[in-house]
């Protein structure tokens, strides 16, 4: 039984944690929150330089060639420090899609730029959940037309992988026929944009079953985002716990009241359950196990719930000061909600988990 990360993997995690603690400070994250920067460029560059962002991209394509376990721990730290970087859009989604669906030539063309930080890429797959129906994307084999309504990091990306029907299409965003509109978001540290294409030159990725690749990429992203969520949840619980030891009321540290102790114990329990599911997802992802769809959905639901609860109760535990702009609590509250819906809602993933369980029991 060895259901844990190795010492070497933990060393990488420690290095990333140290770097992020120094560079992804509250002040730096707020630069993006308050609109003074599109993303934390220095943090992103450091993650690239350390080989952390491209941990799971093979060396042949310019990556560090480590693996998914390493990337999971990078994700945990990114979540913990609220890193305002395009890690999920560029690495978990676009990089994964290119690796899984691209031809050898396509991989050689696009992946090294991503791995080395020269290109920020993003991706969006067909979602079954929507508020408005946009003009759908269409692709005639050469040109892309229509609207991608909520593309993560769409305003800063140079490249996008988009699902159009059964195809995955790769399109450069700096050329003609692309109109970007940065959209105001509930978590400005993770920006979204609408992109309209008007006959934009594009090409399909090699894989014939784009929907299957998209599902597989989303499974990987679910596991990786679960690590971000666990990292964020653990951090806001720490902040609330620390505050409860400083703050006094009725002549006592508020953290000595059982109502608060039990609330924090319950949050901790939720986080550790989510962490266990995330580890299982990491195992399934890294060993390419047939359990991946079940493990990924479970990690997604458990970690989404854990971060939402930790962020909501994190504010509650702080009392009045917790809902001020100056306190960081709302950064976690915003990020928890952002991550909860980025690749499909908790409800959709819970339904997917049930599908897998029932299928397995058949």
């Amino acid at each position, binding site marked *: 039984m060895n259901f844990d990360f190795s010492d070497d993997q933990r060393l990488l995690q420690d290095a990333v944690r140290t770097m992020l603690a120094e560079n992804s400070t509250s002040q730096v994250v707020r630069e993006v929150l308050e609109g003074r920067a599109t993303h934390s460029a220095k943090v992103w560059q450091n993650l690239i330089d350390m080989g952390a962002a491209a941990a799971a991209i093979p060396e042949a394509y310019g990556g560090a060639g480590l693996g998914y376990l390493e990337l999971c721990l990078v994700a945990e730290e990114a979540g913990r420090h609220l890193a305002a970087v395009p890690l999920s859009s560029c690495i978990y989604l676009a990089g994964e899609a290119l690796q899984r669906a691209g031809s050898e030539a396509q991989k050689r063309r696009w992946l090294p730029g991503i791995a080395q930080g020269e290109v920020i890429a993003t991706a969006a797959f067909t979602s079954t959940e929507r508020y408005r129906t946009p003009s759908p994307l269409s692709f005639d084999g050469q040109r892309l037309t229509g609207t991608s309504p909520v593309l993560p990091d769409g305003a800063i990306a140079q490249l996008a992988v988009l699902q159009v029907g059964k195809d995955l299409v790769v399109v450069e965003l700096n050329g003609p026929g692309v109109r970007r509109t940065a959209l105001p978001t509930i978590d400005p540290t993770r920006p979204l944009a609408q992109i309209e294409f008007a006959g934009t030159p594009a090409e399909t990725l090699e894989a014939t079953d784009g929907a299957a690749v998209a599902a597989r990429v989303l499974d990987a992203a679910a596991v990786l985002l679960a690590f971000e969520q666990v990292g964020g949840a653990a951090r806001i619980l720490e902040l609330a716990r620390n505050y409860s030891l400083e703050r006094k009321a009725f002549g006592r540290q508020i*953290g000595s009241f059982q109502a608060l102790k039990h609330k924090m114990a319950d949050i901790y329990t939720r986080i550790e359950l989510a962490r*266990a599911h995330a580890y299982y997802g990491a195992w399934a992802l890294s060993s390419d196990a047939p359990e991946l769809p079940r493990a990924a959905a*479970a990690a997604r639901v458990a970690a989404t719930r854990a971060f939402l609860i930790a962020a909501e109760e994190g504010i509650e535990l702080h009392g009045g000061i917790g809902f001020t702009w100056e306190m960081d609590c709302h950064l976690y509250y915003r990020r928890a909600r952002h991550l909860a819906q980025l690749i499909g809602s908790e409800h959709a993933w819970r339904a997917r988990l049930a599908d897998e*369980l029932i299928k397995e029991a058949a």
Partner: protein
Amino acid sequence: MDFNDSPEEAAFREEVRGWLAANGRRRTRPDEAFGEGLDEAAKLALAKAWQAKKASAGYAAIAWPREAGGMGGTAMQQVIYQQEEAAYLVPQMIFEVSIGMGLPTVMRWAAPELKARFLRPGLAGEEIWCQLFSEPDAGSDTGAVRTRAVRDGDEWVINGQKVWTSSAHFGDFGILLARTDWDKPKQDGLTMFIVDLKAPGVEIRPIHQMSGDSEFNEVFFTDVRIPDQYRLGPEGGGWKVMLSTLMQERLSVGGNLPTDLHRHLVDLARTCVWDERPAIEDARVRARIADAYLDQQGVSLIISRGLTALSKGKTPGPEMSITKLVAAKAMQEISSFAMELAGPEGLLASEALGGNWRYLQRQWLGSPGARIAGGTDEVLRNVIAERVLGLPGEVRTDRNVPFRELDRT
């Protein structure tokens, strides 16, 4: 990261499998119980015979040192043995307290001649041990023990009552926490003893549980005499001795609550009907199945993390308290939902329903006890809050107060 045995673990597992195949009897159906159809005495005799066989092969106390009669193995080997033994018809919970609490306390605190007297027969199942800590007025608050031990020459005279004592009705000896000094603060006036449960003045009454079972007993002591050589640790050192006993529990990773109840929900939802369709097609039912899995598999994965720590020679920490907290509550929620799936027929007792309802209703009736025994949900939340998260302990009004004064209020 993997779920595989190390080469040494795999070799040990093979050895255990070979021994069990040669000596044990495999379960033929999942809910088959040891000694079905036998009366209590015959069942106990069969259990003792199995324990003797196990002891002679060294498997009765795998992690004990050799000089104490153990195998000198690791806690992980102990777990591997238990995993393999689970497929066999073996006695449950009869020798757990002997091997896990009573005898380790004797091993740690008793004089050499007492170890020589008790360890071998205990290991071999010839004598069964109980743990006598809880009292009617000392449940979660174990330090409030009121059973009185008064010195009389070379002996101690015991008066009082214990409760929740497993196996006492067929037990031979117990480790007994008693108050020897009423003028010291509560935890400082306690002393631990070995008590002979067959001695004059010991009366044992089974407790009839809400499930219909009787797994526990009340034990009454009236002028029971214990020789001073049966004292474990110093006079007034009982609290420390008890903590050393409970530390042993940390190595029993995971406990014995089920972690696959969600599978029963899937099976049931296929046959039960909701809104004129199989319940399994209902989105609400599917969501409940998913949530049941999240708790059950989550516990099982946390246990795997604890086992990983054991496998690396570390002791799992207090964070393992999560497993019982989640598993016991999940046991209640999942079994309740199973009954709900069946509609009005879910109100019938298992005898009227057949199938695996006996098992599911046992979970339902057993879950309230599971949420209390071995630490209530509330005590476990305090353990997590204080020992894992480092939050302050409860405000106490009983510290540094002579127990005599507390007892009066």
